[in-house]
């Protein structure tokens, strides 16, 4: 990875934000950009970590969690956004609070061209689906944007997508 080690503490800050927000369920499809956050969540006995077979499961999981009085978050990579489109109508029709944290591929020093077609439409798809979109490019802005997304979602039962840019995450190392 190209970012200096000291700068790569934003996943820990995201975890701290989730804890402050009282998040009790975390659905995720494993992703390298979220690896550290997923590790933190899996190590936390107060959080149900739910590994999903496809991202749309996480939309339904979050709805069920809210029906039962718990807050959830959905972690995914940009390619997963496309898998969610129809299921987002569940959150939109019922105004379920839905917080998504999306790690980007296909936008900055991407080696794999197959990531570009979905990566390039993540933001418009999210906006069309009535999500408030927050984009983090620098490590120092991640926590503040995450706090705003949390407030938007749980303060008013809305949808938000926190986009974690590929520049923030660093490029995938293909040949070690």
């Amino acid at each position, binding site marked *: 990875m190209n970012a200096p080690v000291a700068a790569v503490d934003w996943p820990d800050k995201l975890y701290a934000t989730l804890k402050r927000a009282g998040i*009790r369920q975390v659905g995720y499809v494993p992703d390298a950009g979220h690896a550290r956050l997923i590790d933190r969540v899996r190590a936390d006995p107060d959080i149900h970590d739910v590994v999903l*077979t496809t991202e749309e*499961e996480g939309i*339904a999981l979050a709805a*069920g969690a*809210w*029906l039962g*009085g*718990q807050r959830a978050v959905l972690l995914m990579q940009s390619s997963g956004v496309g898998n969610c489109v129809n299921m987002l109508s*569940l959150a939109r029709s019922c105004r379920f609070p839905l917080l998504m944290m999306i790690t980007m591929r296909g936008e900055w020093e991407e080696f794999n061209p197959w990531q570009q077609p979905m990566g390039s439409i993540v933001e418009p798809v999210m906006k069309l689906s009535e999500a408030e979109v927050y984009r983090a490019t620098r490590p120092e802005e991640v926590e503040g944007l995450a706090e705003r997304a949390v407030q938007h979602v749980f303060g008013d039962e809305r949808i938000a997508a926190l986009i974690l840019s590929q520049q923030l995450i660093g490029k995938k190392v293909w040949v070690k």
Partner: protein
Amino acid sequence: MSALERRAAMAALLEGRKDDLLVIPGLGSTCWDLAAAGDNDRNFYLWGAMGGAAMIGLGLALAQPDKRVLVVTGDGEMLMGMGALATIGVKQPANLAVVVFDNGHYGETGMQPSHTGAGRVDLTEIAAGCGIASVVDVRDEPGLTGLAARLKELAGAGPLFARVRIATGEAPRVLPERDGVVLKNRFRAAIGLKP
């Protein structure tokens, strides 16, 4: 094979229903079946979100471990969200039951054969293969009575999956409330959460 009638099957599963039972139907026929069995604030009717019923059940079951969560959906809806069975198999929620009313057809769209009706897709084998230890195949009235009894004691070893073989006949539509915000808020209020 004398398959079961769907409305009678739903009524049998919900007979003597208590307040600790929360029910999520799939969209379409099972939603109308649930409404026909009697409206209840602890039902969360789905008018869409095909493929999502079992996952809503999982999120709810994890959030409310002291209550019983019953998902009753159709074979088509379950097939669309089949990965949910794998996800449930990993989490093993002891208070969740997923019951599939299987008539081998897509009833809402004109009774086209589904994968369970047109081929050899067996949802009980899929559920078992996903690590769901309690799998029940209901073919007749005694089986249905047995499943209803199991649902009343839902707790312990892990999630329950049941296939109920139902007849293809369509029942008159009984349409519940369709405002999603109303359904969400009344459900939460019924279990003591603020809207």
